[in-house]
């Protein structure tokens, strides 16, 4: 299994190389001059030239790309044209926020989706129809609409949850051991911070997770319906096991495998796709950063973001493949 994991990890390298190549040349061939965006409305041609030189934009594309790769080999992602800071630093600052949001969204989608899917498969028509309605609504409602709706309801009407940001703006967040507020609050035993951070997390995570929840629920339902018809389930029932044990111990585990694939793919998608949710809820993550970078043709930042998301995607897929073996003992890697 370790040899397999290592092989897969090595295979990620050429993939990421391809990602840099494509992203670099696409972002470089978009018409528009990043230097112009830096020096403002009305710089003279000499100033433009100087700034362009300083930003390295006057060198030919392949040379710039090679320079970028050389930096990459040293673990550097280049310097952002916009913020004048190393991209790696910019991303490191924002990555925990995105990770926390996507992980919470995914956890919510996985747990609630599994429950809904199971209930739909096991209970009668009514429950099935209800969960299908939830699923269809989840898939077909645009994220920004969900977000605005939830803000109106829970912030404006009920005043239960905050609408914006990641932590109380008047307080300091828990010390940043991991950058994930929930974990940091737990580590420092700051229960008040834990509650505050959770409250800020609820609406964005729910919004972001709603689409995936619907997907998971549908997959689990389908899987469940198939598994429940199998002979081993009949055997289990015949042995006199309670319905709960039959459903959760025996059937669910088998119905999970296809859903696991979906969850893995979805997680990668969430990493890159949290952009809208982050904007609606003012969540200080990478998505917002990427959008701002695209707007100003900040290609080192765009590349850095793409790379991180690409790497995240690849790693999660690997993790999912390894998990198959845990869920299904028949699957072995070696």
């Amino acid at each position: 299994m370790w040899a397999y994991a290592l092989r897969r990890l090595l295979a990620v390298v050429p993939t990421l190389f391809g990602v840099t190549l494509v992203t670099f040349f696409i972002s470089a061939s978009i018409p528009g001059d990043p230097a112009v965006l830096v020096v403002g409305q009305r710089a003279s041609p000499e100033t433009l030239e100087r700034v362009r030189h300083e930003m390295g934009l006057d060198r030919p594309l392949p040379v710039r790309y090679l320079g970028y790769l050389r930096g990459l080999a040293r673990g550097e992602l280049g310097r952002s044209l916009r913020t004048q800071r190393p991209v790696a630093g910019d991303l490191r600052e924002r990555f925990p926020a995105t990770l926390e949001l996507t992980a919470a969204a995914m956890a919510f989608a996985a747990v609630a989706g599994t429950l809904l899917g199971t209930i739909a498969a096991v209970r009668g028509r009514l429950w099935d129809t209800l969960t299908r309605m939830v699923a269809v609504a989840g898939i077909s409602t645009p994220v920004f609409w969900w977000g605005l709706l939830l803000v109106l309801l829970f912030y404006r009407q009920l005043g239960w949850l905050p609408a914006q940001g990641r932590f109380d703006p008047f307080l300091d967040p828990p010390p940043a051991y991991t950058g994930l507020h929930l974990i940091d609050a737990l580590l420092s035993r700051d229960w008040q911070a834990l509650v505050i951070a959770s409250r800020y997390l609820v609406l964005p995570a729910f919004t972001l997770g709603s689409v995936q929840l619907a997907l998971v629920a549908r997959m689990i339902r389908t899987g469940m319906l198939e598994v429940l018809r199998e002979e081993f389930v009949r055997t289990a029932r015949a042995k006199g096991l309670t319905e709960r044990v039959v459903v959760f111990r025996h059937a669910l585990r088998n119905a999970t495998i296809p859903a696991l694939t979906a969850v893995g793919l979805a997680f990668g998608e969430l990493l890159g796709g949290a952009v809208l949710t982050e904007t609606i809820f003012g969540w200080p993550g990478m998505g917002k950063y990427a959008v701002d970078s695209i707007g100003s043709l900040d290609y080192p930042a765009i590349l850095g973001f793409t790379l991180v998301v690409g790497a995240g995607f690849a790693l999660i897929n690997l993790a999912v493949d390894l998990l198959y073996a845990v869920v299904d003992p028949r699957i072995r890697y070696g």
Partner: protein
Amino acid sequence: MKLCRAVVVWICLLAAVLFGGTAAAVAQQPPRDVLVVATSADPQTVDPGWEMDNHAWMVFYYAYDRLMAYKGGTTGVEPQLAESYSVSPDGTVWTFKLRPGVKFADGTPLDAEAVRFTFERLKAIGAGPSEVFPTLDRVEAVDPLTVRFILTRPFGPFLSTLAHPGASIVNPRAVQARATQEDPWAKRYLAENTAGSGPFVLREWRKGERLVLEANPAYWGPKPALSRVLIRIVPESNTQRLLLERGEVDIAESLTPDQIAQIESQPGVRIERHPSFFVQYVYINNRKIADPRMRQALAYAVDYAGIIATVERGLAVQMRGPIPKGMTGHDPAAFQYTHDPQRARTLLQQAGYDGRELRLLFADRFPWWPALAQYLQANFSAAGVRVKLEQYAWATLRQKYQEGDFDLALGIWTPDFADPYMFMNFWFDSSNWGLAGNRAFYSNPKVDELVRHAAASTDQAERLRLYAEAQRTVIEESPYLYLYQKTLQIPMRARVKGYVFNPMLVDMYNFPGISKD
């Protein structure tokens, strides 16, 4: 059934923890001595030597002092760090006496050397702000409290430029301490930190979340009423609106006109409205549309009142020539084009317009641009000119401005310093073709001469006379369509007192003068 019950119990438990004792925790009214501003994005940097963006200026302007400052809400300037100044008869040497006893926030004395260092850094970095001082040759520290600016040639607006954010005096010690071989001017440090002598200091910047300005205890001037300014990053304008309604923020920066109309009548909310130098105009590519009669025809085709009433909801004033109302040099008697499609048709005929389709370019940069472009298209078509609309990404459109790849293009302009130079020299001097300012690619040797003379003269009356003469020509020849200057709306809580709008400091708030009830 057991299953369902368990689920319900868990959900209730979770909700109790999360929603418990909520009301107090959600709607936090900021304390009296803290001003909360909601803005849509982080500034890119807070480096006065690098930034040309009001968004960043808003954050760092009051962390620094400058030799000169704007007088209240006017475009006039008065000494700030300077105590007095004099200029040599030929207008090329300016000598300033500095206010004694001023210290940077870290205790370093602010002396002539700091001023010299600031401008050396500005020129060495050579980014946008250095453009504001086109004739500056060098700065000399004569003695600790005397500093001398030597210009390559006289520059009429010079004093006014010293109030520009780029002229913020930075602490040489703070910069030198962080300088490295690769980064000799400590750009990285000043990108995220302030090092000035102003009434506030940037204490914290959590990217995408908030910036915190704190009153500088060592400040030499009067102590501000606010002890902190909290700038919250709120990308979604709907959310900004809700936060303002509930009093969680005191000023909301990026509301749409619709949203402002909706909250206008609510108790506790006030809308500040001020005429601005934010100018909306149309570039006519003079290289492609060379006949002045054709350009005049376009100017007569526009329904100015209709555009202001619909596109801007009445919150704008039609321009009278290139220099906006409120700016020195504005000519209240200047000729103003009116909506006269018949006249436009006649002029088109005289110019021999062949019916070719013109390309009108715009971008997604400003929310009112699509509506404005469509309105203009309809106006032109009513006068018999076919116009095709082309929408681009902002960065792409700027490239096209630079290359002159358009017939007509929407554009906006705001002045960096309070002088007609910002309009007349940038827009009409033929050495500024392209993005640098003359985006109409207009060329008239006589106008060149007039505006260059006006720029070099230090005799204000003479300058105004020259600009007035140049204005008559450029209104007549119509290289641009002078549409309107916008009225800015700033929504804030009614309890915010002491706010002063300065048309030179758009999107910026006079933190030192603001207090709250």
